[in-house]
């Protein structure tokens, strides 16, 4: 599996069995963008479920159709999700998102990458869903 991928909106890096998604500065996420972001992640992961670290510190705008799409389709093949935020803006955005959508995967937000990594490490030991079948 490739360990790095990049599109217009984000960089995808696989490091220590954790997928890091780093959103770029100055982008706006609309429905088309959210579809591309999910598609690229699923392709990048090549059928494996991983814990995902999502660095949204540079993100400023995700519109309503995009939020709905990410909430409904964005959680596939994710064991757990950690947002890296920087108060106050991305903290408020994450809280709003979690208040209006109820993701079905363990989700938490952190200011420090190391703390996020130790949260995600708890889900590393879990056998990937696919090995059941």
């Amino acid at each position: 599996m490739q360990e790095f991928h990049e599109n217009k909106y984000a960089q995808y890096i696989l490091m220590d069995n954790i997928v890091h998604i780093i959103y770029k500065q100055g982008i706006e996420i609309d429905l088309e963008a959210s579809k591309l972001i999910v598609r690229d992640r699923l392709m990048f992961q090549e059928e494996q479920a991983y814990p995902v670290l999502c660095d949204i510190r540079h993100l400023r705008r995700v519109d309503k159709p995009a939020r709905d799409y990410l909430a409904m389709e964005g959680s596939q093949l994710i064991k757990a999700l950690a947002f890296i935020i920087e108060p106050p803006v991305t903290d408020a955005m994450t809280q709003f998102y979690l208040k209006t959508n109820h993701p079905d995967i363990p989700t938490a937000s952190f200011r420090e990458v190391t703390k996020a990594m130790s949260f995600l490490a708890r889900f590393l030991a879990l056998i990937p869903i696919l090995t059941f079948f």
Partner: protein
Amino acid sequence: MSPLRTDQRMQQIQHMLLEMAGGNFFYRLDTSDRNDNVEALAIVLNMLAEEIQESFYHQGFVSSKSTTEHLVQMCFLLDGDGNVQMVNQKTCAILSKLHGNLIQKPFSDLLTEPSKDVWQQKWKTLRKKTFYDMTLPLSFMTNESLVIPNRCHISVIKSERSGSRNILVTVFHTTLGKTFGNGRDRSALKTDIGGQGNKKEKPTRPKVRLSYEDIRKIREGRDMILNNLQMDLPNLKDLAHQLGTNEFKLKYGFRELYGTTVFKYLIQERLRKAKTLVQYTQLNFKSIAKMVGFKSVPHFTRAFKERYDCSPKVFRQKAKSGEV
């Protein structure tokens, strides 16, 4: 942030809140890359307005008694140089600008900075056409520095007589039959008032009245289903009791809110999830079927075909060739 800028931002936020209080949820605040408390407040307020606007449009009820209406929010007639020739009356009210300050001014002056760039790009194409239609998302800036993002329908028309070219920009706003605006669509409001005045005509009541508490419980049930798609659906009576309601209200309410039965909704959502996996992964269909809760591959394939008019195999081929 300088105190002056904070003051300006707070004033904009106040304007936006007042517009929302008046029932206008289509205004937005202009946002920037800054990371401070005022910016956080502005972003959350924008997202809140989006959520409220959507809930009025959808209102959570699929079989809502009112129909949706597409109202013309703003309408501009431009000349061949892109200057505004005519506007409708509502435009002045929505943009908080005097009629005289709109006429003979460049249309692009009414747009936000990013929209100005988009418009200028498109203008190069538009000026070459004589008979042409297109839609374009543009954001308008009001006098109070609030932003109105919307899809604009742009038509290039040519007069047969004089040969002059004009551009018509129409901005639509989708709303329910009932207008929540601050008297901005008086005809819609009048119909409502008339209906109330006539005491002989009693409105027909739905058989069951769902309280907000009932709706909350049904939504909770939907979240439970969505978060456990791969699981078998429990007995509806048990599910209803778990949610603190009864089977009848659950069935009736689910249909009212989501337009289908609990069981069909589950299948629909399983297939939606499966579609993404068929489209963007190479997982075999047996794995996908199991991941989304189908007991067997033939069952999954049949249901998939019924919903998307082609088998998962064909769908994957189409996805690869970029057809879907």
